[in-house]
């Protein structure tokens, strides 16, 4: 047998994933990347810090660079009206009715024109993330391949906003969505790339038992009984009141704690209202812990997921719901609402259960609490499933495959 593992430099970032990714993945990535080595790839979004897109770019781009895809990352900037407009676009495209004036549309276009002049858009492959920079397509250099990477759910957009945006989107060479149901009917190829988690990030890296104990102690959550956990914003679609109802049903027969951990988005006026409803539902029960965590509480979330016995994501409507993969990576079975990306992550009976009611969530939780061996086996399956399907190494493979496919078509 002869094998050559070139490029496997000791101390490389990619090599750190060898122990956590599926067997052979790092070598396969290196082989795959050879087909596009030296290619220049530009990513454009609207922020360098904060939010899921910036987070994934921060982690993906150094890995692509190591694979000899020469990446650059540009960020569009704009006026207050621009940011207000794109926030309204974001909400309208995800189905929340917004009022957008002619001036706002014009401010969006003007800002894109200004950014087109300011930014260096020279690259063989450009990935434009979300609607904010979408109109930059007018400035695509000759021969370049442009991809619109849509991270949001476009399934039921406000028609006027989608009508405005669609003529820009159809000029791209391809669009990428996180789930098929997030896509719209378009005359360009649309590809499917699930989001991913980074197993080496603070939110997902291994923690020692002492670290978990210390963090839970700091959060005021004793570890004296099984913990049922849901990590999510206080948002009606995440059904936190339904989670409390499920807990009450479980509590009739099994002593346990409930931890609801999350924050309220600053741009979400409903958040405080929902939190008040959850507080009322929880009452004075000392075994219910409502934790308001800042967006930077990655280690805290990591520790809570590791300390949990069963993890809920009992959403009634969900985007991709990566908190499911995060919990599964820590070997926890997840009981999730039968919606959105949860259904891609939870294989009923194998990595957890999907449910449609508090009663369903309670029923399966009791079953798991009664059968610790089964629960442990399910947790192991869950971790393996995430290893193969939802780690950043798979995300890298998908992006490399997309670049290879588009560049091949161009030859």
């Amino acid at each position, binding site marked *: *047998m002869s094998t050559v593992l070139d490029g496997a430099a000791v101390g490389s970032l990619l090599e750190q994933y060898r122990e956590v990714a*599926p067997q052979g993945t790092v070598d396969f990535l290196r082989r795959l990347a050879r087909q596009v080595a030296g290619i220049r790839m530009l990513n454009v979004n609207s922020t360098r810090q904060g939010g899921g897109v910036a987070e994934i770019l921060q982690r993906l781009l150094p890995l692509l660079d190591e694979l000899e895809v020469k990446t650059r990352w540009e960020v569009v900037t704009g006026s207050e009206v621009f940011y207000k407009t794109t926030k309204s676009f974001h909400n309208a495209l995800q189905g929340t009715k917004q009022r957008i004036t002619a001036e706002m549309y014009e401010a969006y276009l003007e800002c894109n024109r200004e950014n087109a002049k300011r930014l260096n858009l020279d690259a063989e492959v450009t990935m434009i993330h979300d609607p904010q920079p979408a109109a930059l397509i007018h400035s695509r250099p000759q021969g370049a391949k442009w991809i619109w990477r849509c991270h949001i759910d476009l399934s039921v957009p406000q028609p006027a906003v989608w009508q405005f945006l669609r003529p820009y989107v159809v000029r791209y060479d391809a669009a990428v969505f996180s789930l098929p149901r997030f896509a719209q009917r378009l005359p360009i190829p649309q590809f499917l790339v699930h989001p991913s988690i980074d197993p080496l990030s603070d939110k997902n890296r291994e923690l020692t038992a002492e670290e978990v104990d210390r963090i839970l102690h700091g959060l005021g959550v004793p570890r004296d009984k099984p913990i049922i956990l849901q990590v999510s914003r206080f948002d009606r679609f995440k059904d936190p009141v339904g989670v409390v109802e499920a807990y009450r049903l479980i509590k009739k027969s099994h002593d346990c704690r409930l931890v609801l951990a999350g924050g309220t988005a600053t741009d979400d006026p409903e958040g405080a209202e929902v939190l008040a409803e959850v507080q009322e539902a929880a009452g004075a029960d000392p075994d219910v812990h409502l934790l308001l965590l800042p967006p930077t509480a990655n280690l805290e979330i990591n520790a809570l997921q590791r300390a949990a016995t069963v993890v809920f994501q009992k959403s009634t409507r969900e985007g991709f719901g990566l908190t499911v993969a995060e919990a599964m990576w820590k070997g926890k079975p997840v009981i999730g609402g039968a919606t959105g990306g949860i259904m891609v992550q939870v294989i009923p009976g194998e990595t957890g259960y999907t449910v449609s009611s508090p009663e369903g969530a309670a029923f399966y939780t009791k079953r798991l609490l009664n059968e610790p061996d089964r629960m442990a086996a399910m947790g192991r399956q869950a971790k393996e499933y995430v290893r193969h399907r939802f780690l950043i190494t798979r995300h890298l493979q998908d992006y490399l495959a997309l670049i290879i496919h588009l560049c091949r078509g161009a030859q």
Partner: protein
Amino acid sequence: MIGSRAKQPFRFASCMELREILGKRALDEARLLEIIEEAPADSIYYHTHSCYLRHPYSQGLYPNDFATWVALQGQDSVLGERLGILDPFEFDDIERFRVSILTIIADHLSRLGTVPRSTTGEPFEFVRSHVIEADLDLQAWTLREFREALAHVEVGAVYNHVCEARLRKGRLSGDFADWLSAEDGLGLPDLATQVAKVGRLGLSLEGMRARIVRLCDRAMSTGSSR
């Protein structure tokens, strides 16, 4: 001979799938039938074979997406079971596989008064895949080398040489069996025959890998594969 060296080495290549959303979706079994009839062959292939890649170490509910969707979303366990028993390794042509699926669904619907629909509102979304292959620069000249490489190679290579080789490349016994039996390979027809049958066992990719490795071990220990 078991200990012999091949004239041509086995070259391992792995693959992955880039998934393209077709924008066709079904919310009930009648619409599912219609779209299966007109979908590109690559889409039928994706929904009946790619499950191996998506669940390389286990088998999910059923080994094809159609069976899983009707069972889970349509709550139609009878159709789920009838589709779930279909063995992709029984077909040497994706169009024959498509006809079998259509026949089963049509027969099932003809016996029902109402058409089952998705109870959760989640549609069946049609996807097709583009396979991207990469040579792993990993070669085997002897049965021992082949066994060692297979045991450690990225699982996409098992998919590439077993599933992709069969239906998309027309090498019906799969690349492993072809090389094991070939005169310029190892010339081990008995072992090749057993390896070619592994796909029919209903195993996951990891299960197939483990089974082929065991077959190699057994052949090496008995030394009687010809």
